């Protein structure tokens, strides 16, 4: 009933509800929140007792793998979609409240929210995301497909009659799309992303070193020495893990060539998806893409030499967008503005 009134005291926000990180873009403000999509839940009185949110975001991520028995740190998003509805709702509620901390506090925030969803998400998954945001206090919820938001955020000329190819490598999924005239001509989503790289590194280390490392360590290895293409420069990192044979922590050194070997499988999956997309693209748009190249966005675009790998594999120019991590959230925010300026029909939204 008081939605419109509460809306005066709320922002219009765009949320990139990612598997690894959640980013919130506030209209007129920019990116105001970039936190891991992790929630720590405390259960005080043992099994069956009520659960409480212990921490959300970076604080909760620091707890991953380090929690006592009564606290569980979980990631409510998996493969780009909701794995735990209630926890996702609580997490969104927390983030929305955090974004509105400097706003008038008489009313509970009731923003208009645009959420970016993987193009491969099913109707059930989309509805779950929509209801989760509504449950978190959103006054209106719009959904836009991630590749479209990524293309807008990267500044691609999506309204022109020429093809633009965008490859958004996220934490849980990789989205590929060919866009022309404000519409998606081709899109595909593969459930390969940064998490799969981490899992590959964990299994490589266990297989070759007989040592167990955690997700956080695997992510650190990927960020520091991970590479997608062979290079003359070899980087090394010293890590610690539990030796499976001895059962005690041991330290050892990994190099970038080993990590390249470890992540070959998910990289091949991404390359295959790109090839398939190029095969499926209409020839005129394919020519435009061959002329200009494809654009990489998402956290996966920060993996060293991934553009070089795609260039060599496809023979096309490949460029990494400015600030690829925030492209989707920024694009979503820009989509909200475009929707207000030109109406909701400018591109397909739900």
């Amino acid at each position, binding site marked *: 009933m008081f939605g419109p009134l509460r809306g005066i005291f709320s922002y219009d926000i765009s949320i990139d509800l990612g598997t690894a990180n959640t980013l919130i873009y506030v209209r007129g*403000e920019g990116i105001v929140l970039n936190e891991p999509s992790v929630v720590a839940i405390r259960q005080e009185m043992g099994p069956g007792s009520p659960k409480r949110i212990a921490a959300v975001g970076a604080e909760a991520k620091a707890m991953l793998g380090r929690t006592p028995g009564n606290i569980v740190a979980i990631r409510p998003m998996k493969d780009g979609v909701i794995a735990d509805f209630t926890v996702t709702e609580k997490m969104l509620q927390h983030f929305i409240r955090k974004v509105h901390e400097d706003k008038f506090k008489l009313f509970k925030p009731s923003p208009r929210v645009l959420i970016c969803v993987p193009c491969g998400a099913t109707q059930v998954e989309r509805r779950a995301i929509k209801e989760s945001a509504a449950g978190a206090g959103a006054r209106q919820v719009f959904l836009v497909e991630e590749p479209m938001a990524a293309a807008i955020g990267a500044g691609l000329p999506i309204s022109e009659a020429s093809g633009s190819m965008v490859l958004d490598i996220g934490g849980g999924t990789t989205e590929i799309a060919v866009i022309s005239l404000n519409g998606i001509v081709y899109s595909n989503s593969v459930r390969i992303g940064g998490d799969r790289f981490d899992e590959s590194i964990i299994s490589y280390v266990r297989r070759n070193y007989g040592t167990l490392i955690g997700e956080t360590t695997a992510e650190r290895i990927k960020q520091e020495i991970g590479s997608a293409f062979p290079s003359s420069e070899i980087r090394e990192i010293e890590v610690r893990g539990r030796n499976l044979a001895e059962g005690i922590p041991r330290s050892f050194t990994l190099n970038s060539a080993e990590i390249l070997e470890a992540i070959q499988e998910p990289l091949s999956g991404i390359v295959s998806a790109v090839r398939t997309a190029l095969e499926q693209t209409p020839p005129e748009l394919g020519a435009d893409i061959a*002329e200009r190249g494809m*654009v990489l966005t998402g956290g996966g675009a920060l993996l060293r030499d991934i553009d070089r790998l795609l260039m060599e594999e496809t023979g096309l120019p490949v460029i990494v967008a400015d600030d690829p991590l925030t492209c989707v959230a920024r694009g979503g925010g820009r989509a909200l503005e475009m929707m207000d300026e030109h109406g909701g029909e400018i591109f397909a939204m739900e």
Partner: protein
Amino acid sequence: MSEASTDAGSFPQGAGARLREARMAKGLSPDDIAAQLYLRVTLIHDIENENLERLPPPPFITGYLRNYARLVGVPCEQVVYACEANSSGGGSMPTLANVSSDEEMGGRRTPVKALTAFIVLVLMVLVSVWWLGQEKPAELTPEMLSAQNAVGTPPRGAADSNTRITPPVTPKPPVVAPAPVVPKPPVGENPAGLNSGVPGEASENPDAPVEEGSGAEPALPTTEGPAEEPPVEVDPPTSGEGAASAPAAAPKPSSGETTVVVPKSLRAGEAQAELRLEMAEDCWTEVRDDAGRALYFNVAKAGSRLTLKGTAPFKLLLGNAAGSKVYLNGSAFDYSGRGVVRLTVGKASDNKVPQP
């Protein structure tokens, strides 16, 4: 941006020329670069010559510059910034889509938001005040009524049917009226008076007694002009429309006083019935004619007499029925009851007028 301008200063010859120098230093040809970046050779020349208008949109230019710079070992961001700085000076390069900058996205508008919030707050307060001001008193106490009577104004909302007015019902000891003026009986062929709600009589007896104390006067023929206007001792107040049914604001009767009220609208000879009230005790009195006009709306003091003229039937509300008597066209109207009584006097079905 200051960093950008500093970096631009490190490439005084321009980003394209810097890239060309670095390429030549590495012994590479434009063809080598084009082959490694999977770009056309003409694009490489355009980049080196900074013919940016011939290049694809800005995000692609930025990407090409980065890739080129990385290939020849020049700091990528410096090249990009230098190119941006040169293009903004020359105006040849389209603005790069840096949507994260405050300038592009509107920046913070805290003062505007604060002002908006303040205005909304003020509006809310005003609406609240107005809302509270709209609320009516649930009941009027006798003290309030007497205070209103003292200034001669009818109680607020008298015409508002939603307002419930509690008349003063507490009987007071009867006040001995000093020589009340006894009305003379109506003179005429028809002692029953004017149209007392009895069909047929009015047309047969157009003459009717008008009022007590002033002697018998000819009745008002319904079609006569102002010359035959009934005498009026007390004019009903005409102070504004707020008095809804102006006759309601009758002058405050004092003990023993005779008051005659004729609605203005009836002066043209419409008066058809006479209602007389004699008060032995103070009594809240409300009289309405057939049209719903309030003929009297006040506390009638003990010993006072009211003569009201209007169209029958009359609707009466007497707060102290035991202390008052009602006469219709000179005949006593029989009713029973104490305290608050509602009466309809002069109804067609109520024709059996009791004898005085």
